[in-house]
């Protein structure tokens, strides 16, 4: 079954979403990430959506959930690379994804994770 690949970079995980996801795939990613955090006791997760041309409420909620679940497992999540059109649409839709840290790109996101103290 197709799955979004998760890359492990030391204490951190990177998931790059490059396909138009159906709901099941998104839920699978959520599951895979949380079990990977646990398995590797990762300190942080980067979700790269620079290739996503659309984020709807389902995907938005999935991202929020990953962030919340990660926090419970003591890992910080950073969402990187949201495209302008997607940001504008999400705001209009009424989703602000509060509580989810964001960064312009993977490099900045990684720097953010490395610099952050373990508690927020």
């Amino acid at each position, binding site marked *: 079954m197709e799955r979004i690949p998760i890359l492990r970079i030391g204490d951190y995980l990177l998931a790059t979403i490059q396909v*138009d*996801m*159906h*709901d*099941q795939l998104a839920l699978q990613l959520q599951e895979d990430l949380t079990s990977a955090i646990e398995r590797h006791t990762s300190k942080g997760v980067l979700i790269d959506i620079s290739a996503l*041309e*659309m*984020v*709807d*409420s*389902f995907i938005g*909620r999935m991202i929020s959930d990953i962030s919340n679940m990660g926090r419970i497992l003591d890992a910080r999540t950073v969402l990187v690379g949201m495209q*302008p*059109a*997607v940001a*504008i*649409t999400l705001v*209009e*839709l*009424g*989703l602000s994804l509060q509580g989810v840290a964001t960064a312009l790109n993977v490099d900045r996101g990684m720097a953010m994770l490395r610099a952050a103290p373990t508690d927020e």
Partner: protein
Amino acid sequence: MDQIAGGESPLRSQHDIVMARQTVRRLSQEMGFSLVDQTKMVTAASELARNTLIYGGGGIMHWQTLKNVSKKGLRLIFSDQGPGIPNIELALTDGWTSGGGLGLGLSGARRLVNEFEIESSATTGTKVTIVRWG
């Protein structure tokens, strides 16, 4: 106002929702919408398609490309034979509630388009029509 072309896309599975998004993206591009307008339309379609599938038990999306003097537009109609929405007024004001409530996000989708109409009853199911002009 003239209709240029029309078609339909089934909404019976999750893959259908992805197909519907791609169809709407292609049509929006053909109608010359700006990137932001394309994204808004695709996102609205995704929301409504999901509602049709999950809440409506499956249905269909009809699309029509429109022309009004020099403006081009896209109309999408999402219909199902599901249980209908008991309180449309309420559904139009609530967003995504964390628990309880329908959380259909209709008010959000409405903000993404220029025209929005909804008909719903227990006997006829639900029909949502949206139009976006480029």
